[in-house]
């Protein structure tokens, strides 16, 4: 539960209101401009492309693909992650600049899915990077991916970037 915390001592309510508003404005900017990294792994990549395509059109939400991790806010782990790729995925995640969000798209990225019996498949991307939204499906439909994006937007809108201390940022374990 979020407790309003005042910048000014002795609980003047006005200060709280102002910081909250600033938070909201910043969150509005962050949530409506989620550039996702152009990074498809497997089957889900095709659905990801179709989501950016004419019918679903992620651009409506201000989400455009960026080819480089430095400029992207959202990583869509779209597909099966093999061990060979997992090392690179972790590197890519580390190359992304804060704040960054991850959607584990599809069963394979969530838990290994259909390929859990395989010897070369990582069972879930959350073993290497933190995940914000899990999206089941094999592959998920474009509508589902749009919903996942809206979920990320909601998460952002709930966050309080001005109060977040540096240590609070996600730490990779």
């Amino acid at each position, binding site marked *: 539960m979020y407790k309003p915390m005042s910048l000014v001592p002795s609980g003047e309510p006005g200060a709280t209101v102002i910081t909250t508003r600033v938070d909201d*404005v*910043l969150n*509005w*900017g*962050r949530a*409506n*401009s989620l550039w996702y990294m152009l990074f498809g792994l497997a089957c889900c990549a095709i659905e990801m492309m179709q989501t950016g*395509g*004419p019918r679903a*059109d992620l*651009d*409506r*939400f*201000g989400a*455009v693909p*960026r*080819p*480089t991790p*430095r*400029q992207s*806010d959202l990583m869509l782990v779209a597909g099966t992650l093999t061990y060979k790729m997992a090392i690179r995925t972790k590197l890519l995640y580390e190359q992304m*600049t*804060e*704040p960054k969000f991850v959607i584990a798209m599809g069963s394979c990225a969530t838990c290994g899915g259909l390929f859990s019996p395989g010897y070369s498949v990582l069972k879930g991307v959350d073993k290497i990077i933190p995940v914000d939204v899990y999206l089941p499906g094999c592959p998920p439909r474009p509508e589902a991916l749009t919903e996942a994006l809206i979920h990320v937007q909601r998460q952002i809108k709930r966050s309080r*970037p001005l109060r977040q201390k540096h240590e609070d940022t996600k730490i990779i374990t």
Partner: protein
Amino acid sequence: MERLADYIVYNLPFLQQIPRVIVDLIIMLFFATCMLLFWVALFAGITSWVERRVAGRIQSRIGPNRVGPQGFLQWIADGLKCFLKEDFVPAAADKKLFLLAPYIVFAGMFAVFVVVPFGDGLIISNLNIGIFYVLAISSLVVVGILMSGWSSNNKWSLLGGMRSAAQIVSYEIPVSLAILPVILLTGSLGMQDIIRAQGPYPWQWFAFHNPFTFIAFFIFFIGALAEGNRTPFDIPEAESELVAGYNTEYSGMRFVFFFFAEWANLYIIAALTVTLFLGGWNTPAHLYTNLFGLLHRSVDVAGTFVFILKSLFLVFVIIWIRWTLPRLRVDQMMDVCWKYFVPFSFANIVGTIIWMVLADAAPVLGYVRYILFVVGLMVPLAIAMKITRNFRLAKSEIHLNPFI
């Protein structure tokens, strides 16, 4: 500007104790900042929104429509987000150059706005070397891009920077040479002089003045596209080849500087083309202001309106080209420049000089501009017919309403 400074100093007596140079400087800086914030950033931002919406429509998508009416505030959201993002400097980068590069690109692009003549009196500084200033100051962009490509310590950035430098330096030549016929006809480098030398009616524009300026118009426009790294010459930031070109390693606000410079540049290309070849702010009403001095101000406003409208139409054309054409290869792009544009531009200059001499001798040649105007009118007509044919053959559905 001087008058404005005088006026301020006169009204605020305490300023008179400070040396006048410093006061001038502060006032200049203040107005420059206002200009950047409220005028240039507005143009760059709105152009970015226009581009995304137009691109969406071209691709039978919608484009951003969630933030503000019809997604109009999208550029503010993008800017805000990038402002909050981590400003990242790669460990192996040349730190000083890396940090400096975006500002240089930004400065080079935005300084051009100083001489963009939005209206009869609406120009920040009507330099007597106007167009020369544009050519000189916009060269800063090359330096910035090359710096960013080099200092990122990323091979894709380096390739992008190198490509960009080669491209801009090469295309500087045909572009400058294509401007020369206009300068010859005007006899001045000042932007307002160039516009005044053209008449209010379309057939009096420099684009239709004679066959050589007609060719020069196309060389200038295409060359300017290449200088601005726009498709079909967008090879420095070719997404499918070089990841993101010279700005691969940039994030946050520094990336936004590149981003804004790109769209400001889009507007500059259009504005310069309008100034040099398409009559600038001239409207038929300007002919009559001298007759009825009363309407002076409103005519100015109309002129500004016409100028912005013309240039926005060209912006639309550039966006249209961007989302239609594929990209050239590096060697092909150089071929176009050195084998076709440069020789043609030289021929244009010589041709214009001969034309000017001949036109003095034979005034009949003045009627050529009407023929050229009709020819120029054919170009959009031909395109319109092609589009109609395409609609008919592909049995496409047409959705004219742009607001979804």
